[in-house]
């Protein structure tokens, strides 16, 4: 009797648990799982939003258009005698135009980049250079920002973990960049990076004798990514620092006392004590930040618009500007896959065990 009563209670508790979890799972099913499947399905169609053309399943066509890459040798231009044409002024060999080398059928390739290896000129062609560049830029942006944020984040975390008057205020203060809406901070920085001396950075560099005061930070391709990285590092280092601070506070103080007794200096203490004990925290912070950085949207869309894409802003413009439902779905899927690969690789590489969570 008592046993049955206990069993009833357990069953009751289980029913209650399912009941309580149901709303969460229904919501997530509706706004995450179902749309994800519809994105997968759409990525295999030629669906164009608000268009009269009937939607058809086109197999991997979208993916082929997004991801096709080719590398071709660019032959030097030959004169009538069959000798390479050499530029009279620079003495460099002239090459055939890259566009003419790249295949046109069945899909037309466009040049992404040209490079020379062992004296031979190559061209990298893609059917959608904008997307290939978006992936490349986003990964570069992600790696650079996460690395810089980790390095600076450790410095900031160690600082606000030290005892000093006004530490509480300082901890609140480092939350300011994190709390400001990205839309606002993007505009703030876009204004500071104006291409003339109305902008803060051009004025500063001009005073320091660097540049002519008219550096086009946001329109010169060479400056665009560094500018994006700078803005993101400012915005997100606080988050990194707070995660690391939480890890620092978990390290028992007597370990440091023991190290003091052993006569270890601060540098040795940092590398032999703090860093190894912070490993787990760093791993988790890296995973979170990398996943965040690779889906960057606000910053790129607001500051660079269609001048240069991140993976996410490429997808957005394909959907809203070009109404390419099928094509943008395929790029969504690619983003999803890239993010998953990074997440798994990090977890594996850094030896984060699932039971540590």
């Amino acid at each position, binding site marked *: 009797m008592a046993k049955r009563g206990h069993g009833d209670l357990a069953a009751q508790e289980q029913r209650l648990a399912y009941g309580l*979890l149901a*709303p969460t799972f229904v*919501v997530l099913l509706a706004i995450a799982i179902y749309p994800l499947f519809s994105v997968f399905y759409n990525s295999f169609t030629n669906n164009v939003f608000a268009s009269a053309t009937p939607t058809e399943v086109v197999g991997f066509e979208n993916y082929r258009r997004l991801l096709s890459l080719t590398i071709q040798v660019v032959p030097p231009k030959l004169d009538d005698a069959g000798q390479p044409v050499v530029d009279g002024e620079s003495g460099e060999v002239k090459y055939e135009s890259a566009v003419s080398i790249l295949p046109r059928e069945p899909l037309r390739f466009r040049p992404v980049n040209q490079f020379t290896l062992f004296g031979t000129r190559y061209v990298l062609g893609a059917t959608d250079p904008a997307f290939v560049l978006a992936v490349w830029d986003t990964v570069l942006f992600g790696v650079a920002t996460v690395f810089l944020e980790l390095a600076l984040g450790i410095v900031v975390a160690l600082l606000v973990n030290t005892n000093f008057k006004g530490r509480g205020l300082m901890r609140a203060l480092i939350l300011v960049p994190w709390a400001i*809406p990205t839309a606002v901070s993007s505009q703030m920085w876009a204004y500071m990076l104006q291409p003339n001396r*109305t902008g803060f950075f051009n004025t500063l560099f001009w*005073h320091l004798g660097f540049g002519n005061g008219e550096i086009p930070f946001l329109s010169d391709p060479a400056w665009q990514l560094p500018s994006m990285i700078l803005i993101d590092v400012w915005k997100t280092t606080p988050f990194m620092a*707070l995660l690391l601070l939480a890890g620092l506070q978990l390290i028992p103080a007597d370990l440091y006392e023991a190290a003091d007794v052993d006569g270890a200096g601060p540098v040795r203490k940092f590398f032999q004590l703090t860093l190894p004990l912070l490993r787990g925290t760093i791993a*988790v912070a890296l995973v979170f930040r990398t996943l965040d950085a690779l889906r960057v949207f606000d910053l790129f869309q607001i500051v660079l618009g269609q001048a240069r894409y991140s993976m996410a802003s490429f997808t957005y413009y394909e959907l*809203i500007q070009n109404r390419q439902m099928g094509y943008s779905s395929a790029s*969504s899927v690619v983003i999803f896959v890239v993010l998953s690969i990074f997440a798994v690789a990090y977890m594996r590489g850094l030896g984060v065990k699932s039971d540590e969570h």
Partner: protein
Amino acid sequence: MSTKIKQRLNRILLWGLIVVMAFWMLFPFYWAVNSSFKSEGMLAMTPTTFVPRDPDTGTLYFYLRNYEAVFTNQAFLRAIGNSLIVATATTLLSLAIGSFAGFALGKLRYRGKTATLYIILAMTMFPAIAVLTGLYAIITELKIPPLLSMIFTYMLFTLPFTAWVLTAFFRELPTEIFQSAQVDGASPLQTFYLILLPLTAPAMVTTGLLAFIGAWNEYLFALTFTSIAPDARTLPVIIANFPSQFSRQIPFGEIMAGGVVSSIPLVLLVFIFQRRIVAGLTAGAVKG
């Protein structure tokens, strides 16, 4: 003697770093405030000035028209209302739904618990961009109004986070409270409402704050879902695509004023609830 000098040097180095850090964190915001008090003529001065100055006399001068323009701009005022509605509704919904889940995950025994925990954790990292096209299709198909669309879809990032953090808090509550209430004849649901919920109030404040800030700052969904509904635009969308009263160039003065206005509530929250926000942020990522 030499250790004393060393200590003093350490102190100086520490404060030097603190000052540099504070400057680096605050300067861009200061620059926005500075620029928001400049007229178009003052903004065009080269080299730029570190405080608002009159272009002719060079004396300190605060130009207030940008704020006036912002507060008489119908689109901006509507956006404040929209942002408040969306962020508040999302926060309350996530807290209600998420606390149920947190209670079940943190305190109840049932089959499949590990799996559900993993699903919630995985969902906290779910990339919104991956489902953008899918959600957009559903919303246009079902003709869901934009404000409602935002309220529901923002739960994609607020709900898993809320449930995850609340789970950790529920788990830390002593099981004895729960058991003694059951011995007294309270049903698990009564225990939840009468005993556990009041105890988790601080955790609710923490997660609520973070959900609110996240929703207040959200841009991707807001931009997409209001692309043909200008009246439903939230503050980030307005700030990013500022509609000028007198469209000449990009109205940076007004944008900065609008940006300062939309950031001030957040800066206040940060200073009032610093401890809670830090606790919530780290609980979401490290603990659990």
